[in-house]
């Protein structure tokens, strides 16, 4: 089936730039493709339809993308991808206004669908990779969305190489979404490389605002401003639903059909909303539960070690001393501004990109290393925090020297008596 498709697509691809060959030559790395797709400002190439123009991607590139993955990916769900794409775009256009740029076969409705799917694929990468649901989510999702009765030539879905994607590439995704022309404003900052915290991407795209969405009138539908506005609303909602769908694990299996049929779309929406609600509720419950457990751990909670840990996030070495000075916070004279040495520590820590969540990996040697580097004069008697608890809180010894390893970690003084300047957060 792929071979049957190839000529079609190659025909399609004739219009695309010559980079496609180079891309194919590369290993299946989604990010590069997306980047190259972004680079092509091919808005004019698309037909005059406003939506597709906005969507930016010409069909060629989308098809080329498709084909590329078709070549290299295992035939996981042959019909799924094309159908999904057809759906995506097709729903709205089903009534006959579908115009594909440059003689794409109708089975590559391309623009919206492919762009979205491509965006989603990258999003998936960064997304909850631990969750297996999203892992299998792409293919099943594509299968599920197979509503179109006529089966277009199959294009294997790329088994999204999520693990290969780096956060840096998410930037490409976002830019691509921008190129998509829904004019979403993309706020991005650099992210840390932790793959488990990968829910970030949806947020990026979710942060994008849709100032306006061009909507084509469906054949046979009213074209007055009200229904157009309605449809625009629906499209906005759908876009967000998709993002939410990716965020919530397990949700991708629930088809959220873009207007393939209205009722299906809406029930799909309802199901997605259900999933989201469940997810948020479960997260809230987890917070409750964890706070309960933390309360149980108390009063043994030894906040000193926590501060120590925060300070050891600084690179041991030159930074450490400064970091610890910065962290020197004297809780007793509590002024609102001295909230935390947040500013300084942040400045110090940000470039390091430490993974905070692996605190328990902080072995004894790390702590002792950190302490060793630190000048012992720092470990003086601490003025004690006005929390009113005695030693249980900050079990420190003024015998400081903290070079003994884990016990020292607990007992070393973390708080220094330096005054804290007003720190802005």
């Amino acid at each position, binding site marked *: 089936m792929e071979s049957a498709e190839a000529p079609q697509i190659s025909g399609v691809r004739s219009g695309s730039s010559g980079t496609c060959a180079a891309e194919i030559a590369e290993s299946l790395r989604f990010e590069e493709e997306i980047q190259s797709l972004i680079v092509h400002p091919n808005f004019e190439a698309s037909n005059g339809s406003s939506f597709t123009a906005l969507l930016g991607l010409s069909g060629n590139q989308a098809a080329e993308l498709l084909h590329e993955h078709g070549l290299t990916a295992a035939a996981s769900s042959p019909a799924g991808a094309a159908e999904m794409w057809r759906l995506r775009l097709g729903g709205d256009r089903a009534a006959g206004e579908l115009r594909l740029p440059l003689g794409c076969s109708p089975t590559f409705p391309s623009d919206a669908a492919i762009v979205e799917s491509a965006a989603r694929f990258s999003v998936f990468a960064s997304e909850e990779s631990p969750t297996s649901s999203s892992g299998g989510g792409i293919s099943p999702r594509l299968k599920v969305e197979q509503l179109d009765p006529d089966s277009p030539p199959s294009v294997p879905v790329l088994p999204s190489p999520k693990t290969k994607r780096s956060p840096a590439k998410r930037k490409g995704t976002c830019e691509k979404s921008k190129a998509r022309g829904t004019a979403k404003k993309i706020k991005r900052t650099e992210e840390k490389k*932790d793959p488990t915290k990968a829910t970030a991407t949806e947020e990026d795209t979710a942060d994008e605002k849709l100032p306006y969405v061009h909507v084509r009138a469906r054949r046979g539908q009213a074209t007055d401003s009200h229904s157009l506005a309605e449809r625009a609303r629906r499209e906005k909602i759908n876009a967000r639903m998709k993002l939410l769908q990716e965020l919530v694990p397990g949700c991708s299996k629930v088809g959220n059909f873009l207007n393939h049929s209205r009722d299906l779309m809406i*029930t799909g929406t309802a199901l997605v909303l259900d999933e989201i609600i469940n997810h948020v509720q479960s997260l809230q419950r987890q917070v409750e539960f964890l706070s309960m457990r*933390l309360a149980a751990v108390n*009063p043994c909670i030894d906040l000193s070690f926590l501060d120590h840990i925060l300070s050891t996030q600084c690179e041991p070495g030159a930074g450490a001393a400064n970091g610890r000075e910065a962290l020197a916070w004297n809780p007793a004279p509590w002024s609102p501004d001295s909230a935390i040495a947040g500013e300084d520590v942040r400045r110090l820590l940000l470039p390091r990109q430490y993974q905070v969540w692996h605190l328990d990996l902080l072995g004894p040697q790390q702590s002792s290393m950190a302490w060793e580097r630190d000048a012992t004069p720092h470990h003086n008697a601490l003025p004690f925090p006005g929390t009113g608890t005695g030693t249980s809180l900050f079990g420190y010894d003024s015998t400081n020297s903290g070079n003994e390893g884990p016990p020292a970690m607990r007992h070393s003084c973390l708080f220094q008596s330096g005054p804290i300047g007003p720190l802005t957060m």
Partner: protein
Amino acid sequence: MQLTSSFKLNFLKQMLLGFQLSAVSSNNMSFHERKKAIKLSADAAIAFARGRTRWSQGLITNLSKNEKNKDVLKGLLGREYDELSKPCCNSWKIPRSKKILRRCLRMSSTRKMAGRAQHDVGKSILAKTLAKKRIQVLKKLVPGGESMDGFSLLDETLDYAMSLKAQVDGMRCILRTSEALNFK
């Protein structure tokens, strides 16, 4: 919003500060009080670390409703407290005007839809009801959600869900480390 390490660090620090402020480590708190204080610190920390979003404002507002929490909150958030705790002023007016709009729209659209097949209308009504119910539930879940319309609600939900995840991760981390250290 991105789950940056700085965000998480901020959250952690704020939360620890909150613990100190509310003196959770003291022995004179009951279990429940302690749990509430911890939760308060965690919520305030996440709202603070997130910055100014609708849900964070809503969260702080909800937390501030309890008088006792206000001092802790003020101390924790500092000057951010004032900014965060004033919600969008006309937030209640927005849903009302939207309802009016929607009613007009609905009337005009039902008139148009009268020509269509009956089952179509039925289906769409059913579907809309389903979606509406869930949106209502979602509004209750997300802090400050009542005053948001559909789109922003979804946006905020996304944001909120991410922050919740960060919160859960952070708390779990703290818990793990403290437990590990306690056993030594």
